[in-house]
Structure formats: structure tokens, C-alpha cells
């Protein structure tokens, strides 16, 4: 049998572009080959390498849930070369995709448990597919709470769906921003502090968190105060990646490769790794 070429991107078309914030854009893409689209499967938390040919590749979470099959969604924060190039694309443009890569959230093990999502900034992207997947399989999970924070209201991605999340009876949504802002009707305060105020019970609960390193650091401390054990905390790591298949050697932490053994880790697993985040 012919081996798959893991470096050859699958060509896809951008069908929709959403300007989320001043520096985050969301792309909804479909593979050009209908057969590929039809057969494509992935799990919440897995990532893809997006190609802007001529500039390069960068890694993004597939943030649409596997339960919605008509497109793949990626949200891209502009930080450098490839992300800037991607931001110049519009509907109808071609893009290369290598996906799915990496491991995924242990959603089977989370069945029957309460779930607390804690997302900061673009860190909401990896949480979104898992949360939507759980909402699409609502009866399998206990109470679901979302705490999503951004610097200010204009930095908040997924604005168009926040209202529907707030209105859902089967989801408790808290939105917070760092500092007071004219017209903001939700919480004001840093994520770890707000988390301590909401004080979700750690009993039979799993916390899933992603965001900038400093937020993660204090969020982990807050979770510990609330009685969460390391095994009850799940997060995703960001490491510079190239091949995405465990070969190029770039993303290792000791003998673990973030592109294969991650990006999803429990806090317990992270403590086992050499200290090199």
C-alpha cells in the first residue's frame, strides 16, 4: 500500500471569513475534493497546519465540533508572517490544510461529569469544539459552566454566538473583561479571580482551560484552591510545530512530542514532564 504523504497539504477553499476582533479572523473551509470532505473525521482538540503557499504553515485548532460536518473552522490571531498572510485571504481563496494532527480531549472519560470551561482570549478556540460537541451530546454530561474572558469587549471572539450561549438553560455562561468598559453588562475582573467568585464545585468535575501562560498559571492556582486535583484539570499546550507528525524534532518536552502526545495534557501529565514549558 502506498504510504500517505504527511507533508502534502490537501487543497481547500475558504467559504466564509468572519472578522472576530481587530486581530482574530475565523475561516470556514471545505476541502476541494468532495470525497476528502465526506471522509474527513477528527476529534475535538485536534489541530491542523494551514498553508499559505509561498509563506509557510502555522498550527491552528479545528474549532468547529466534529458533529458539524459541513465545514472546518479555524480562528487565526495575527502574530507574525503566516498569520498576517492568512488575514489577507478572503472568500473563495485557496488554502492548504494538513489535518487532523495531534491528540484530543478525553471526552469519553468526561462522561457523566460536570465540566467547567475556562478560556482566555484566543484560548477559547480549542475549548469551543469540545463545548459544542458536549452540547450536541448534552445528556452525556452533567452541569456545564463556561467562563470566557478577554481584555475588553472588542477582544472577544465568537461574539455572534455568545448571546445564544448566555440564553441556553443547559449552559451557565460567564463573560468577563479585565477592566471597566462603557456599556459592558457582564463581569469585570481577571479570569482566576472571577473563577474563585463563581467557585464551581470540584466534586465529580473536570476543568478544561486554555489561554495565555500567565492566565493559565493563576487559573491553575485558583483551581487548586477550589479543590481540583491535577487529574481533574485538562489544558492544551502551544509549542512551535513544523511537521506535526513527530519527526522534525521541534516540539519536544523531554521525550514527549506536543504534536503527537499533545497538544492536550492533564495538569497531572504536565507535572510528569521535564520543566520546559
Amino acid at each position: 500500500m502506498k504510504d500517505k504523504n504527511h507533508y502534502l497539504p490537501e487543497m481547500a477553499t475558504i467559504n466564509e471569513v468572519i472578522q472576530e476582533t481587530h486581530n482574530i479572523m475565523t475561516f470556514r473551509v471545505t476541502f476541494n475534493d468532495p470525497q476528502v470532505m465526506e471522509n474527513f473525521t477528527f476529534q475535538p482538540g485536534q489541530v491542523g497546519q494551514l498553508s499559505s503557499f509561498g509563506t509557510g504553515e502555522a498550527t491552528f485548532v479545528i474549532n468547529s465540533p466534529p458533529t458539524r460536518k459541513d465545514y472546518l473552522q479555524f480562528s487565526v490571531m495575527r502574530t507574525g508572517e503566516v498569520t498576517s498572510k492568512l488575514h489577507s485571504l478572503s472568500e473563495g481563496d485557496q488554502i492548504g490544510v494538513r489535518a487532523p494532527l495531534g491528540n484530543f480531549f478525553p471526552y469519553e472519560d468526561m462522561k457523566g461529569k460536570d465540566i467547567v470551561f475556562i478560556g482566555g482570549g484566543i484560548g477559547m478556540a480549542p475549548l469551543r469544539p469540545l463545548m459544542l460537541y458536549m452540547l450536541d451530546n448534552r445528556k452525556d454530561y452533567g452541569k456545564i459552566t463556561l467562563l470566557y474572558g478577554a481584555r475588553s469587549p472588542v477582544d472577544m471572539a465568537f461574539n455572534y454566538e455568545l448571546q445564544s450561549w448566555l440564553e441556553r438553560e443547559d449552559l451557565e455562561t460567564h463573560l468577563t473583561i479585565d477592566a471597566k468598559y462603557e456599556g459592558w453588562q457582564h463581569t469585570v475582573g481577571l479570569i482566576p479571580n472571577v473563577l474563585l467568585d463563581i467557585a464551581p464545585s470540584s466534586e465529580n468535575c473536570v476543568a478544561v482551560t486554555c489561554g495565555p501562560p500567565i492566565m493559565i498559571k493563576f487559573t491553575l492556582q485558583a483551581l487548586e484552591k477550589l479543590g481540583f486535583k491535577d487529574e481533574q484539570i485538562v489544558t492544551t499546550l502551544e509549542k512551535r510545530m513544523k511537521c506535526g507528525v513527530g519527526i522534525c524534532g521541534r516540539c519536544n518536552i523531554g521525550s514527549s512530542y506536543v504534536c503527537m502526545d499533545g497538544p492536550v495534557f492533564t495538569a497531572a501529565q504536565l507535572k510528569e514532564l521535564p520543566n520546559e514549558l
Partner: protein
Amino acid sequence: MDPVKYLKSADLMSWLEELARENKVFAPRYEGDAVIFAPFDPKQEISIKHAATMPPKKTVFPQSEKLVDFTYSKDPENLSRILIEAKEILPKGTTVVFGSRPCDVRGFTMFDRVYLAEKTTDVYYKARRENTSFITLACEKPETTCFCHWVDSSPSDASGSDVLATPIEDGYVLEPFSEKGQKLLTSSLLENGERWILEVKDVHENAAGFLANAPDLSQAPQKLLDVFDNMEFWENAAAKCLSCGACTYLCPSCYCFNITDETTGMKGTRFRSWDNCMSAQFTMEASGHNPRPTKAHRLKNRVGHKFSYYPAIHDGVISCCGCGRCIKSCPVGIDIREIVQEAINHEPAIGKE
């Protein structure tokens, strides 16, 4: 296996010429002060006295290789839209490498575990690896920087090679170690070599005799983890390092790469090229955060990867083949043997972790 063959030294160039008719042949020769593997040219002398300055890594893993060609074109139905076609470029043809050393080729066995992993086989590497044969020269007299015997190997190790050539008086005894190797040994220039088998054994034993006793490295993987957070240890080890990367470029078992794009007009190519963990850029993230901010962190990764992390996921095999090139070529004399031994002998200070 077919019988062992014998080749007269005087016929070596003719044999290589024969092989070059159907294969691309690489052999070591001088270029400036360095001995490198270059395409065989009957008019140029080959240099096989010692291991080459550069291992033949590039014959299977080129310093820069094309992965994907892409072309842009205007969509005839909508001229404002650009269509893109991406095509893989797979390597073709067969290659024979003559004059590699046991450590050089053993390096590819370190690659194999990573590049030929079942679910993530690297098609470019696989194509080259399958189509490249190695005629490896057993070493007669190891150098002071050689330590292949520390890492389960020897000056006559044939692992990864297709033919092992042992120099004896006036010629070479050629032993096949694979089907590919057997096919290389069909030339009429070769005669039966069975009668030299005892001489071959002598050469191998004699070479091994030059090597001093090897230290026990079984504790190295754990000991290197034990000193992971001891930055003083690593700052001392790396104090003189210039982050030049020579130690990884010349290493037969360093396999890391970068992927980059180049375009001209409506065409472009995605390349992969050698990269290495001694460079500050290697792990630099877009945010400016670098998990390995200093040369001490990076040297720690090089030593750790070879003597601890790789063995942890590949059946205990150390991913250094003891060729000594990183020692010889380091402009400031950093010696990986010393670092590993210091880690093994390191006693945590009392009262501290």
C-alpha cells in the same frame, strides 16, 4: 547469504565505475581541508584513510530537499481568483555509498525508528533509504575521539549497512548484510573471499583493542533527567558554546529539520532543510516566548535527546553512535562524553533536591 567476496585494491576504482553505471555513487574525497562524500568521479582520488569530516547523511537526508511544488494560476471562470495546485516531488533513482563508516550508517538506524514509524512514515526518507546501499568500511584504527563502543557498537558494526568491507593486505573482504548488498557483489572483478575470514576477524579484534574500557551508560537516561533543573550544571557545560550548530550538522544521527517556502513568479517550492536544537530560533514562539532561552537550555536538549529522551521511547537505544565528530569539530572543545559522564557522576547537593 552469498559467500564473502574479495576485491583487490587495484580494482577498487574499476568496481566503483561499474557500480556508477547503474547507480549514483558517492565516495569520500578531499574538498579543501575536509573529506566529504561527493559523487564518484574516476578521475579524482578517493580518500578512505579515516572517517570523513562530514558523514554521508545527505545521501538519504539532503541538506535541503524539495517536498512540494506549487503553482498559482488564474481561475478561467473568475479571473480575480487564484487557483493553487500542490504536487509532491518524490526522489528517484538508486544510490550506492562507498566508504561510509560503521558509526555513519548506524546513524540511519536512529533515523529509521523516527522516519519509518508505522503510522507516520516519511515518504521522502523512505524512498531514499530503500534506494540507497551502503558499502561500509570497517575501521582499522579508531581515533581518540571515537567511542562507538560506549553505545553498543564497534569499529566493525554492520548495522544499517548493506556490505561491510574490511581492508586486508592488498584488498578488501566484502561481506553482504542485506539483499541489496548481495546484489552489489555480483561483479566479475570480485573473487571468493572465504579464505580471508580469519584475517577479517583479526582486523576487527585489533581495531576494538585500540578502544579503552567503556563506562556504563545504563544510568544516563535517568541521571540526565535528575540534572534537568540544575541550570548551574548546564551553564557550566555550555559556558564556551558559540551556538554554531556544527555539532548537529556533522552528526550522523541528528535528524531535525525546518520547512520553508520559496516562490518565484507563479511557481514555488516547499523545502525541508536541516535544522538543529542548538539554534535559538528552533523553539522561539510567535509571542516572543522561548522555552529554551539560553545556550545552556539548548545544549541540555542536545545531550538529553541523545542520551535520555530518545532511549526512553526507542527501547533504550542511545541516539549517538559515538563517531566523535561533534567533539572534533566543536570550535571550543565541548566534549559530549564528558557531559554525559559528569551527569552520571553528579551527586545532588545534600539538603537540596
